[in-house]
């Protein structure tokens, strides 16, 4: 059963408290009974005392009566008077005291007439004695009337005393029984409380001290820097929560230590870098001072050269204007070139047409030549047959054979001529082909030339624009150079101020270097203190 420690303590001590309360109530009531019984005993003693008072008052009255009767002297009546005077009050007291007891009331009621008759007998005798009638008085005494009344009164009172004694005895027994019960209750209650309190104490002590010891040991480990452990948590009571919080705390501490270690590493490297940077800065500052001196002299040179630049820019602007005008005429020439190129192309195409027509004419010549060749072949064959016929004619055909040979020669010449013409025609055709190809090439080149002329046109236009922009730019350069002169003087002033600032920077850099050394030392100390933790 999981209870919080506070609940456990409350339950343990609450049970003990309840038992204690019960025991207290029992004891209180027993004690009250005992005290009440004691009061009643006292009351009984008071009743007995009151009875004794009545009895002694009666005795005083009888004693005074007897003395007066014997002596006749008034002074012996004093006890009688005191007794008579007291007896009524005493009986009244007795009746009041025994108001709770009916038997005693009855006895008291019986006593009252007996006492009255006794007192009447006494008063009668005393009155007779005063009258001097001693004898009558004695006679009354001797009648034992008084004596009986007295004995009766004694008996009643003795009865009352005995009753009271009996009551005292009863009450005494009751008081003793109650006292024994109270004692037993006190003893057992005390034992029970002892057991409960000790059990609760042990249980609570164990449930607190054992985890607490683990926590103490754990805290000791943490204190020694061991963050690798986790404490065991048991249950959801305060210690369990304490354990969880401790674990979370150690986890947080672990993160903090890890981050701190990481940060310290970064810090150390950063500090080293800062130190290095600071040293570089110190070196750089001295270089800067030297550079500023150089810059100052350079700026003076730049100022002088700026004047030259301004002059040169002015010259360049004027020459660029001249170039712009020249480029316009160049543009005109390029346009003419393009037009000429187009007309050249037209003419070259016409040449190609003519050459093709020539080629067709050549073909016609070839046809004629093949006809001539055919004729020559037939003539040749004819001459052969003529020679055969001449040979067949024998001696008569000899002259004819000469003519046949001549015809053959003519035919051969014709054939040779046609062969030559064929060769020439072939050359002509080749020449025509070459011419057409060359013309085609020329047309292509002219096209290319036209494109180049167009390109040149564009280029010159762009160039002209560029030159005009250059003119504007150089004019701006001249203006800017003037402004530059003003700017250079401002720059000179600024460089001097930079020189002063670099002196200040050198001073602060040395200070920064010292601080960086301190920072490095601090970082190392921090690393040592963080490395105490194992994570």
């Amino acid at each position, binding site marked *: 059963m999981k209870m919080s420690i506070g609940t456990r303590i409350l339950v343990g001590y609450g049970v003990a408290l309840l038992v204690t309360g019960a025991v207290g109530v029992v004891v209180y009531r027993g004690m009250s009974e005992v005290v009440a019984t004691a009061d009643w005993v006292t009351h009984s003693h008071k009743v007995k005392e009151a009875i004794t008072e009545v009895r002694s008052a009666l005795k005083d009255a009888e004693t005074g009566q007897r003395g007066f009767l014997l002596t006749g002297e008034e002074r012996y009546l004093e006890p009688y008077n005191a007794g008579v005077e007291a007896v009524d009050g005493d009986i009244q007291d007795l009746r009041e005291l025994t108001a709770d007891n009916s038997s005693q009331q009855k006895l008291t009621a019986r006593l009252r007439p007996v006492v009255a008759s006794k007192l009447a007998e006494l008063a009668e005798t005393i009155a007779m004695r005063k009258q001097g009638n001693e004898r009558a008085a004695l006679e009354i005494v001797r009648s034992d009337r008084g004596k009986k009344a007295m004995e009766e009164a004694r008996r009643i009172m003795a009865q009352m005393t005995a009753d009271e004694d009996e009551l005292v005895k009863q009450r005494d027994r009751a008081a003793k029984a109650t006292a024994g019960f109270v004692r037993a209750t006190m003893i057992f209650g005390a034992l029970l409380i002892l057991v409960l309190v000790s059990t609760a104490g042990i249980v609570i002590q164990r449930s607190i001290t054992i985890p607490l010891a683990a926590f103490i040991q754990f805290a000791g480990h943490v204190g020694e820097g061991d963050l690798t452990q986790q404490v065991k948590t048991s249950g959801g009571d305060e210690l369990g929560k304490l354990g969880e919080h401790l674990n979370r705390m150690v986890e947080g501490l672990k993160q903090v230590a890890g981050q701190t270690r990481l940060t310290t590493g970064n810090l150390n490297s950063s500090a080293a870098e800062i130190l290095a940077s600071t040293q570089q800065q110190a070196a750089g500052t001295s270089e800067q001072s030297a550079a500023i001196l150089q810059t100052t002299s350079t700026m003076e040179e730049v100022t002088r050269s700026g004047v030259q630049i301004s002059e040169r820019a002015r010259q360049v602007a004027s020459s660029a204007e001249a170039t712009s005008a020249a480029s316009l005429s160049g543009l005109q020439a390029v346009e003419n070139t393009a037009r000429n190129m187009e007309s050249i192309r037209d003419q070259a195409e016409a040449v190609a047409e003519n050459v093709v027509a020539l080629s067709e004419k050549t073909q016609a010549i070839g046809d004629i030549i093949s006809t001539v060749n055919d004729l020559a072949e037939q003539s*040749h*064959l004819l001459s*052969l*047959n003529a*020679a*055969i016929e001449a*040979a*067949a004619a024998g001696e008569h055909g*000899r002259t004819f*054979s*000469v003519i046949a*040979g*001549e015809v*053959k*020669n003519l035919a051969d010449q014709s054939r040779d001529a046609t062969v030559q013409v064929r060769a020439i025609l072939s050359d002509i055709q080749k020449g025509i082909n070459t011419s057409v190809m060359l013309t085609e090439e020329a047309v292509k080149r002219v096209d290319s030339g036209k494109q180049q002329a167009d390109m040149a046109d564009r280029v010159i236009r762009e160039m002209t624009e560029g030159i005009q922009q250059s003119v504007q730019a150089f004019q701006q350069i001249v203006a800017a150079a003037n402004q530059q002169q003003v700017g250079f003087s401002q720059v000179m002033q600024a460089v001097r101020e930079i020189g002063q600032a670099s002196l200040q920077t050198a001073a602060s850099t040395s200070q920064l270097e010292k601080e960086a050394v301190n920072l490095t030392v601090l970082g190392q100390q921090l690393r040592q203190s963080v490395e105490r933790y194992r994570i």
Partner: protein
Amino acid sequence: MKRTHIDWAQVHNRLRSSEGALEEALTASPARIDAAYRERAARLAKGRAEQTPCAGALTVMVFRLGPERYAIEIEEVAEAVRLEHCTPVPGTPTLFAGVINLRGELLAVLDLARLLALPEGVGGESDFVLVLRRRRQTIGLKVDRIEGLSEIRPEDLSQPSQGKYVKGLAPGTLMLLSVDSVLAEVVSKERV
């Protein structure tokens, strides 16, 4: 591309001169005709002097079969004609190329290149047929090209070492064929 520029004046001159030359060549002027005649007469006189007939010389018809030059005696030849519309005849020996129509009569044409066992392809451009002068049979020899007439002196002829159709060898690697042995071979082949 020529580096030097063309001289247009020279070009015009050349054109004019060639035009004039052509005009002159095409015009049949009397001077030209006269010159041509004189040249031809001189050449004829020269030929006559060279062609002095020597006694006993053989007049032969020279023709070509492929690269080879052959000749037959002129008396054996009746006519030379073009080989046109040669029709192969089924069932004839392969030596016969076919028949042609010669002025209404059929003429058998002998494939001389095949008979002489010349390499295949030779005779593919045969253009002419030599018609042989025989009484019993008319037959033609298929030849590539006819060169013309020539005369062989008998002392120039040498006997061939081999070849049954060659009658003799003349200068200029000219082989004189024996028409009789050729025809005999044809007849023997026909019988087979």
